[in-house]
């Protein structure tokens, strides 16, 4: 399906500056989109092309000249003449601190994790140079749901990015997953907080497993470092729907 010109005005072309580089884009694009088009890397964890914007991980925060506030580049649309800084000492410090917070929140023990080597949290920490965590670890006692035949949900590894919740509701349309509780007591659930195997709405499509950036959602039967995720389906499905 093509958009008829009467429903939407043709996208306006904008020019702006990212990290000193003059770039152009169409109105309606986010800062993150435009940065990526121009090979400028902004770290993200909750954002995934094809899913709605969440804006929760705060790693993609950038500075915009003229404002003392920071903006989540995944959720902020470009405007004409914007002058954006994606890398600064201040931003790097904040990003490191966010990763430290995630590591301290639950039990991330890379050495025994099936996602070791395929984990976005791990690779992000390496990229941003997080060498040690100076926040005290919480070491919460959390459960692992292995009730399901094919997949496993390990709350110890979850970073609450909500990608699984979004892919389940928005792409698969099952909405088996959601979040329960609030604050530090937020958890991913299946149906009425049931063992996954008892959640009747689940189609066992496995999309949640493959969008999970960490080792929280994995395939059963994988050993340490074996759980590589396959995401090719997502852009394919989204483009199928759009056209």
């Amino acid at each position, binding site marked *: 399906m093509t958009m008829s010109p009467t429903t939407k005005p043709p996208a306006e072309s904008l020019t702006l500056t990212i990290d000193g580089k003059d770039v152009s884009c169409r109105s309606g694009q986010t800062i993150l989109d435009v940065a990526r088009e121009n090979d400028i890397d902004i770290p993200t964890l909750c954002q995934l092309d094809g899913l709605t914007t969440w804006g929760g991980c*705060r790693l993609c925060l950038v500075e915009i000249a003229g404002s003392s506030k920071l903006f989540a580049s995944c959720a902020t649309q470009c405007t004409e003449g914007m002058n954006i800084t994606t890398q600064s000492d201040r931003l790097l410090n904040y990003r490191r601190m966010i990763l430290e917070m995630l590591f301290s*929140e639950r039990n991330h023990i890379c050495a025994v994790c099936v996602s070791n080597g395929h984990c976005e949290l791990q690779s992000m920490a390496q990229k941003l140079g997080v060498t040690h965590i100076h926040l005290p670890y919480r070491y919460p006692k959390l459960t692992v749901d292995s009730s399901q035949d094919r997949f496993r949900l390990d709350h110890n590894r979850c970073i*609450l990015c909500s990608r699984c919740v979004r892919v389940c509701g928005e792409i698969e349309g099952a909405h088996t997953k959601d979040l329960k509780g*609030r604050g530090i007591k937020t958890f991913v659930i299946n149906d009425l907080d049931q063992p996954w195997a008892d959640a009747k709405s689940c189609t066992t499509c496995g999309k949640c497993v493959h969008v999970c950036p960490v080792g929280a959602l994995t395939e059963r039967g994988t050993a340490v470092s074996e759980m590589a995720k396959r995401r090719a389906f997502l852009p394919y499905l989204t483009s199928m729907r759009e056209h």
Partner: protein
Amino acid sequence: MTPEDLHGTVLKQQAKHGNYQHVFNVCMESGCVSCNSAAVVEALEAEVKKRGLQKTVCIKRVGCLCSCAQGPMVALDKGDTLYKAVTAADAPAMLDALDKGGRVEHLDFSSKQPFFSRQLKVVREHAGYFDPEDLDDSIRVGAYEALRKAVTEMTPTEVITEIANSGLRGRGGAGFPTGLKWSTVAKNPSTPKYVVCNGDEGDPGAFMDRSMMEGDPHRLIEGMAIAAYATGANRGFIYVRAEYPLAVKRLTRAINQATRTGLLGSRIFDTKFAFEIELRLGAGAFVCGEETSLLSSIEGQRGLPRPRPPFPANSGLFGKPTLINNVETYANIPTIINKSAAWFSSIGTAKSKGTKIFAISGKVHNTGLIEVPMGIPLRDIIFDIGGGIPGGKKFKAVQTGGPSGGCIPESQLDIPVDYESLMSVGSIMGSGGLIVMDETSNMVDVARFFMEFCMSESCGKCVPCRVGTYHMHEILQRIYDRQGTPQDLALLQELCDMVKNTSLCGLGQTAPNPVLSTLRYFKDEYTNLIHSTPTTEVLP
């Protein structure tokens, strides 16, 4: 209802009132109701009946009479005589005093004291002297006159210009110019539009909005209707906390009354303007006071905030342009329309116009509800109006703005109360809670208390607020338990800066404020707990 009907009701009610020689106004708001003011009303009514005075003495159930700690409060006629802590048994004595022209000594509460005389009642101009459950009585004191004027004599643009010229700023705490917000919604071509009232007064220590909703619900409805007319909305929502059952009851009643008489609905005052209001109940989540969370909650979802921009004025409820204002902001609107922008902007300071209602409580003599002009020094509020600290104790700090605000010490008490001044001392105007603390309060404990609040009220969506408030609370608890180290203090400061700057919504962005302000003014209390021997560090 036509404009003529409104005028007719006013005349009829005034005539009816002219026949009364005396009116007993008995407070029937939550505070006084819990001290059994209902029994006082019944006893007075029975006594009046017994004496056959029904034609000359009126017993009225009214809104807040300000002095909540002295309840049940009763005001005679225009309030020159005030009675405090009245019981049902006092009814005969109060009626006896009428004939003698005197007062009941043991109940007398001077209406001349600064607590009353220093107040300036604009929003609460009639509060306490009419029955909020009675539409006709509300109309008698001027309800819906401003709505009539707006829809029959002014264009929407004129209304917005008037509000913009008045200099009114949002009373929810941040102080965004109201006129600007209205014009953004009005200019958006997308329809339908919504008008939402934020009655999720979650700041502990603040109860102005509860009082407004209980004591003058029609003023709120009128303010919202004017906003709807100005912005082109036809549907409104009032979001109220479920913790305020009386407010819910009175608002429901008021909306029904207004709808039945055609003050809401279609063809309001015989014009093309149509507007209806629905009530939505909160369910115990502080974060829903944040406007985007509130919208999520009205949509029946978890109260999670959304990134801004887009602002609700452009994409709000159900993705449509939405005007969100606080209860007190809407309550200011009828007065501005009635008395003009010029009159309103003559009150207050250069940048903060009008009055502000505060709920003053804590370690202070006079607790209750006060309305004061912007710019009044904090010291006057606490020592004149509040009457100072009881028990011969020393003042230590006043907390404004709830969990998003800060603690202001003695040295800063001479600042005028306005948005910018409060911000400059590390606090915020907030919704209007003022909690006074004396020397017995430990400021680390206060900071810990607020951080515990923010931690358990964090929605969990963004990492800095979800995990940061947890760590800050742990550190504060450790320091309070005398287990803290100087490294803890450094880490606490680092976390404050980070959470403030990186959180998604206002809750996280302001959660560090109570810590930052206590660190700024009471650092010695932290260091005293960290080092076993007290230090004599000079305050910054």
